[in-house]
């Protein structure tokens, strides 16, 4: 009977320790991470837009892609697609123009919280269907209200699901509604 009581208690205490440990996960420095697991669906020979949401951890900001001074390091995204996928037109949002306590006379163009970067994903005609992984990295330089951190790069990845092109389909029910542009 006693043994029966000890076992669930042990499990409970273990879980308590484990959750406490992970609750203490330090937010040592700044980070920019991709939100979710983005996937882009594109028809073979077509184009689609990849919308990647990035999150700056609380308390920090990063320079936008077009900071207000040439000395400031912009946030940039570099993508290295596999040979089956082409990436073009990486588009960044405008930064928020914010004044910080450390520089009350100067506005900085920054991202904080979530921001979205888009890129055009294109596949050539005849690209085989399947799932392809695009690797890349986001480079950023972050600060908080008192200090700045050296430039940092974080690897990112997302999947491109290439589907059979509309033209190749034998049983197209309503081709006029296809949202994809043929490349």
């Amino acid at each position, binding site marked *: 009977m006693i043994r029966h009581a000890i076992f669930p208690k042990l499990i409970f205490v273990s879980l308590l*320790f484990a959750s406490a440990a992970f609750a203490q996960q330090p937010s040592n*420095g700044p980070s920019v991470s991709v939100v979710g697991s983005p996937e882009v669906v594109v028809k073979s020979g077509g184009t689609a837009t990849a919308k990647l949401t990035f999150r700056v951890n609380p308390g920090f900001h990063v320079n936008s892609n077009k900071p207000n001074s040439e000395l400031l390091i912009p946030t940039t995204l570099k993508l290295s697609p596999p040979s089956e996928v082409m990436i073009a037109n990486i588009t960044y949002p405008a930064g928020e123009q914010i004044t910080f306590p450390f520089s009350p006379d100067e506005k900085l163009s920054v991202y904080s919280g979530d921001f979205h970067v888009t890129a055009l994903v294109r596949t050539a005609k005849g690209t085989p269907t399947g799932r392809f992984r695009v690797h890349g990295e986001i480079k950023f330089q972050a600060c908080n209200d008192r*200090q700045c951190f050296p430039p940092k790069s974080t690897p990112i990845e997302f999947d491109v699901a290439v589907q059979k092109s509309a033209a190749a389909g034998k049983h197209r029910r309503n081709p006029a509604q296809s949202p994809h542009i043929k490349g």
Partner: protein
Amino acid sequence: MKRNAIILAVLVLIVAAMLYSGRFFQRRPAGADATPGMQGSAEQIKGKQAPEFELLDLNGKTVKLSDLRGKAVLLNFWATWCSPCKTEMPWFVDLQQRYGNDGLQVVGIAMDDAGKDAIEKFAKEMNVNYTVLLGKNAVAESYGGVEFLPTTFYIDRQGKVQERVFGIADRKEIEENVKRILASPAAGSAPAHTVAHDNQQTLHASPGVNR
């Protein structure tokens, strides 16, 4: 079966306890003003002899910390991409101007990859009148690893680190620290006189970088 479950639970408990203690000790702050990351080793440096370094200035001349023995040194790690560092620079220019004759030497160690020309151009634009050195990671490491900027060390006339400040500081706090290190006695000499200048003195920044 029941025995195996208890052994498993005990193992899970041990692992969880190890995780918990690991996180706990990782997060213990070493100083109230410290940001997690570098503070542990930087805290240890306080009160100790400042690590010696040899770095090139903007003229290509080697500068050693020991060359400045007997002076009070404000050692500031900065970078051209660091906006809070930029805010502090005119304050340092002012302090160098006002307290230079009393034995203050401000030394800025540039910790970026912008290259000498860009650093020099920036320093000129900021009317820097103090020594600017081209930083090396090894020097930053010897000071506890400068993981963020600005980071400032106040080194007294005996070469001991009296204070270190992470991030931008209040201007008054900077001046108080400068007065403290100026008041420290030089090695083997009588205590230096207390510095009490007029804080309202107008800034007349000299053009160009200190050579």
